[in-house]
C-alpha cells in the first residue's frame, strides 16, 4: 500500500510540483492550502507524513505542528517543514515540536523526496524493532 503524504502550502504551484514528484514515485498525495484545512485532513486521513509550509493563512506551519502534537490522533505523524525564512525556526524549536526535518525554500523536489524516503524508512525500522 502506498504511503500517504499530506502537503500543506498556500502556494498552489508548490503543492502541484510536490504532488507530481511524489506521485511519480509511488506516493499518495493529499493537499491543503492553509493550516486549518491541513489539520482537519491530518485528523481525518491520518497521513504517514506531513510536508508543511511555515507561513500559511488561517494557521501557520508552527501552529499546525503544535496542534498536531497535542492531538492524540496526529501526535506521532512525522513532519517536514518548508520555510523561506532560513532563521525562522531554531534547532531547539524543531526539537521541541518534533519536526523531523526543515528544508529551506527554494528547495529541490529530489531532496524533498529523499528526505521523505529516509524518514519513512527510519520509522519502519523503528516499528519493526
Amino acid at each position, binding site marked *: 500500500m502506498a504511503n500517504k503524504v499530506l502537503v500543506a502550502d498556500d502556494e498552489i*504551484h508548490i503543492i502541484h510540483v510536490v504532488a507530481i514528484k511524489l506521485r511519480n514515485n509511488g506516493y499518495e498525495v493529499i493537499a491543503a492550502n492553509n493550516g486549518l484545512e491541513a489539520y482537519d485532513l491530518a485528523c481525518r486521513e491520518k497521513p504517514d507524513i506531513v510536508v508543511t509550509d511555515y507561513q500559511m493563512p488561517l*494557521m501557520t506551519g508552527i501552529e499546525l505542528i503544535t496542534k498536531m502534537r497535542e492531538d492524540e490522533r496526529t501526535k506521532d505523524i512525522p513532519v517536514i517543514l518548508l520555510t*523561506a525564512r532560513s532563521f525562522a525556526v531554531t534547532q531547539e524549536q524543531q526539537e521541541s515540536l518534533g519536526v523531523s526535518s526543515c528544508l529551506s525554500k*527554494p528547495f529541490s523536489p529530489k531532496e524533498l523526496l529523499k528526505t521523505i524516503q529516509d524518514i519513512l524508512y527510519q520509522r519502519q525500522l523503528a516499528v519493526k524493532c
Partner: protein
Amino acid sequence: MRGQRSTVWIATAAAIVSLLMAALAQWQETGVAAGGDRWFASLCLAVYFVGAVGVIVLGVGYGRLLGVVTSIAARFLAPPSALDRPHGSGTSNALTEAVDAHLADGDRTVRHLREELQDLQVRSRLSERQKRHVEAILYSLRDAVLVVDGSDRLLMANEPAAKLLGFDAAHACHEPLAEIIGRTHAEFVELLRQSRCNRTEATKRELVFTQGDRPRAFEAIISCVQEDGKTSGVVAVLHDVTKEKEVAQMKNDFVSHVSHELKTPLASITAYSEMLADGEAGDEETRKEFYAVIQNQAQRLNRLIEDILNISRIESGLIKVKKEQASLTILIEEQMQMIRSYAEEKNITVTSGQPIVYDQVHVDKDMISQVIINLLSNAVKYTPAGGHVTVGTEVDEAARLVRVTVTDTGVGIPEDEMGHLFEKFFRVSANNKQAKGTGLGLNLAKQIVEKVHDGRMFVTSKVGVGSTFGFELPLATAEQAAAV
C-alpha cells in the same frame, strides 16, 4: 644734599682756620707781653692745634654720616637705578649695599607675588570659562547627562536628564541621588554606585525608562572621574536608542520580508525547472504547464523587485516620472478588467459607480494604474467569497480634485492598526493568516499619490463590515488640457 655737604666742609675749614689764627695770636701776645713765658705760650698753641685736629676729624665724620643718611633717604625716595651711589668706602658702603640688597629682594618678592596673583586671576577666569563651556555643552545636549560626586550626590544634571528621570534639576543639586530617584529608578542608581565602587572607566549598559506610557531604550554610558587614585565622581550619559533599535528592527524585517518574498516565486521556478530537467514532466501538455508556471513566477519575481526599486527610487527622488493628460475613468476600467478574473475565482463581484463627467488628470499613467490595481487586488484578497467590491469616483469642483474610492465588504482593519497601514511591509495581523502579501502595495500607492502627484491617500474601515481605501488627485488644469 650736595649743598649741605659743601657747607659742612666750608664751616669745618673756617673753624680750623679760626683756631689756628687764635693760637697764633695767643702765642704772639703771650710771647711779646710776658717776654719770656714761652712754655705757657707753646702749651696754648698745642691745645689749639689739638682742637683744630679734633674739629677736622669731627667734620670728616659728620660729612660721611651725612652722605650715608642722604644715600638712605635717596634709596627710599627714588628707584635704585636712578640713585647716585656714594663713592665712599668702609662701613657706610657695606650698610648701603646691605640695604640695597634687602630692598632689591623685597622688590623681587613683590614682583613675584604680583605675577602669581595675575597668573591665578588668569587661571580662575579660564576655569570659569571652561565651566561655562561645559555647562553650555551639557545643557545643549539632547542626551540626558548627570554628574554625581564621590558620595553619589547630584552635582549637575541637564534638562533631558531631569525630564527623563523625573526630578527638579534646580532643587536637586547636592542631594543624594538615591533620595531623588531611588524609588523610581533604583536600577540606574545602583549602576552608578557599582561603577563608582568598581572604579570602572566606562561602562555601557542598555536600560529601559518609561516616558509617558511608552518604554524607551537608552544606552547608558557611565564614566568614573578618577583623582589621586580615588573616584571623585561619576558621569552618566543616557542616549535614547529607541529609534535606532526600531530602524534596525525595520531593516531586519525588511531583509527578512524581501528574502521571503523573493524566495517564494524562486522556489516554484527552481522546483519546476528541476522537474523539467529530470524529465518528470511526462507529456507535452505537462511540460507546457511547467513552462507557464516558471514564466509566471519569474514575472511575479520581477514585479516584486520593481515594487521595491520603485519605492526606493521615489524615496530617494530618482524615479523618472512621465506625466500626461489621462482619463481616470479609462485607467480605472482597464484595471477592473484585469482584476475581474481573480475576483470571479473567489466569487466576488467588482462594480463601478456612475462615471464622472470631467475625469481628466495630469498623471503618470503607469503609476496611477499601479495604485488602482493595488487597491483592487487588496480589496478582492481580503473579502470573503460572495462579497462585493465597488469602485467610486467623484469630483470636488471647489477643491479642483477627483476622488477615487475602492470599497469592499471584507474583514476590516482593527483601529489600533490603522495608523500603520501605509508603512513598508506592515501587514494587518489578522490578514497575515488570511492571505499572502508583501506589505509593499499600500506604501507604494501612497508614495505614488502623495510624493509624485501631490495627492492624498485615505482609508476608513470597520472590522467585520469592510474597508474603503481611496485617493485624491488634482484635476488637470485648463493649460494642461489645452496642451494635449
